[in-house]
């Protein structure tokens, strides 16, 4: 029993290279007068898996939404795969088609079937033919273990299944980076693990992943680096062992004691 949990929880081998995938330097953002992101400096390497945590309102979502320009940063530089994010629409589209995103509320397209959800962007953005796109979609739907739901509409699926479809939909674009914004926090407890399992399998393939999550078990097992944010700043970042064992800042300690106590 004991040995089994140990092997299950064994940490994934790090596959991070020294090639930079995302680099942010001195990034600042305001919502009106409210300073959401303050001087964010962050480099993420290819194949690196990062978990971001922090209290509500600390700017975690805003940070990762800046990476694919769902939010616009006002100051500083962000570059993704060497392409600088500015108001150039071409760059934005190039980055968006290389960066997949999974939302807390799934955001599947309710008027399209699961398969159509997965093939729409490959056909129109990647110029695949319909048959090619469908083959790839079925492959990824099989990987997230719901090929039999392909013809259903999102509204007919459970939350966990919807979130797995959302992951498959992003993967169909063959992205190099995946962003996850609290992918499991809208799910019932028994569905969380089916989504986390899919994410762990994805991590094993060497995908660069940026995950906003409070699933500390997941962070321990998958993350190369855990980032703690508060008040729009990166308070602390470290390997998961160090981060959980001896947090440096007292803010981190307080946060960890709060989320680990229940």
């Amino acid at each position, binding site marked *: 029993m004991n040995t089994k949990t140990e092997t299950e929880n064994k940490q994934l081998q790090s596959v991070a290279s020294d090639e930079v995938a995302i680099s942010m330097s001195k990034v600042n953002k305001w919502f009106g007068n409210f300073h959401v992101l303050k001087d964010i400096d962050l480099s993420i390497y290819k194949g690196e898996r990062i978990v971001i945590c922090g209290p509500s309102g600390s700017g975690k979502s805003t940070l990762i939404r800046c990476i*694919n*320009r*769902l939010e616009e940063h006002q100051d500083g530089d962000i570059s993704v795969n060497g392409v600088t994010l500015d108001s150039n629409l071409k760059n934005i*589209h190039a980055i*968006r*088609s290389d*960066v*997949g*995103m999974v*939302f807390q*509320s799934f*955001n*599947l*397209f*309710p*008027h399209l079937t699961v398969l159509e959800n997965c093939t*729409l*962007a490959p056909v*129109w*953005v990647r110029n695949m*033919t*319909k*048959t*090619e796109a469908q083959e790839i979609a079925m492959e990824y739907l099989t990987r997230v273990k719901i090929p039999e739901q392909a013809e*259903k*509409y*999102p*509204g*007919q699926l459970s939350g966990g299944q919807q979130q797995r479809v959302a992951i498959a*939909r*992003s993967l169909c*674009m063959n992205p190099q980076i995946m962003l996850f914004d609290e992918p499991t926090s809208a799910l019932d407890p028994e569905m969380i693990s089916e989504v986390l399992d899919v994410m762990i399998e994805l991590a094993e393939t060497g995908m660069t992943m940026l995950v906003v999550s409070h699933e500390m078990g997941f962070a321990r097992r998958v993350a190369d680096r855990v980032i703690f944010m508060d008040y729009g700043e990166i308070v602390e970042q470290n390997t998961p062992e160090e981060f959980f064992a001896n947090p440096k800042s007292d803010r981190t300690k307080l946060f960890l004691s709060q989320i680990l106590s229940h």
Partner: protein
Amino acid sequence: MTEITEQNKVSEKFVPKPSLPPPPNTTGAIGWLRYNLFDGFLSSCLTVLSLIAIGFMCVNFYEWAFAKAVLEAANRQECRITPTEFGTCWAGVKFWFTRFIYGRYTDTEIWRVNFAAIILILWMIPVWLPRVTAKLNIALSGVLIFPFLAGYMFLGGDRNWFMEIMVSVALGCFITVMIHSLLCLFTGAGISRWIIQLTGFSSRSERLHKFPVIMFAVIIFLLSLFLINDVAFKEMPNNLWGGLFLTLVISGIGIASALPAGILLALGRRSKMTVIRVLCVAFIELFRSVPLITILFMATTMFPLFLPEGFHINKLASAIVAVCLFAAAYMAEVVRGGLQAIPKGQYEAAEAVGLTYWQSMGFIVMPQALKYMIPNIVSNFMGLFKDTTLVSIIGLYDLLGMINAVSQDPSWIGLHHEPLFTAAVIFFIGCFAMSKYSQYLERNLGAGHGR
């Protein structure tokens, strides 16, 4: 602790109670009557009073419409049933009915109007047949391309090169739609699949499949060009158009252009580009705040004052433009309302997978928003259909205009009620059909979503 375990051991067996029939007189016809019409003293009184009122009206209507009906008469004077009293002169309606429908269109040319109507019906029927594919293309071609064909059939006369091309394209589209629908119905495969198969392209890469299809389109176009080469219709200037025909032309064009124009205006109003937004807001607010009749008068009387000397602008054309602008402004607000019902997450998900603005609008946002908009869109269409009667005030002979004209005809002078009743019935049929169709659409579009 021990108590709990003991309780857990002795679990009772649950047997559901049998269902009993409901108390008597609460279901069935008698139950319905009691509950809905005779539920207490006040309700019974109201029911009886209403029944008396309805009965009274029915009797009166019967007397007017049937008992006093005069079906054969050569003029209004012959419709008297007593020397002093006129009967209900259905003979007048019968005499003028063709004019009510077609206005002053020459009798021998009326078949052209009917023929165009039949083409439109044939063009649109496939949209309702479940086995037919590519419905959206069929519907769009019907809305965008059919008007050129219809326009020529109605107007006749010489064709310039532009009309020559557009009429051929329209005819070609019609032929293609017909072949496609028949193929779908009888073989289950659409026309492009057949073309690809017959030309032997099915074994080639999917990217090459468009070439035989384009070839086919060109051939059909040339064929249509050849077909219409010798066809020339007598010119029927549009001041001869009238009656229900004219009403349908004006409201049809208004309806067909209102939705696309409304969508563009609504998107413009939400645009981040200030100039576009301000222009759209100004347009919408201007046209929504002015009565349609004013716009019609401005279009037909004031606008020509600004035109250079000798430049003549057709009254019907300016009325149609006025109706379209007015309808677009209203539709824009309906569309904006529908867009607001779409959660932000849908826009973000569409952006995040890399779709462009127009792609995400076209594939993600609009299809969902249109579903919410259907009741409002159809209300607007019904309003527009009825509002076109205002063009009778600026001197066009639409259905209402014809009716007014008839009442001033020397031998039928004073014939008002019967034609107006006829017009009311015609408008009711049109609007009721639209309303029923919108309910059907709502049910059908809602079904697929499973939520």
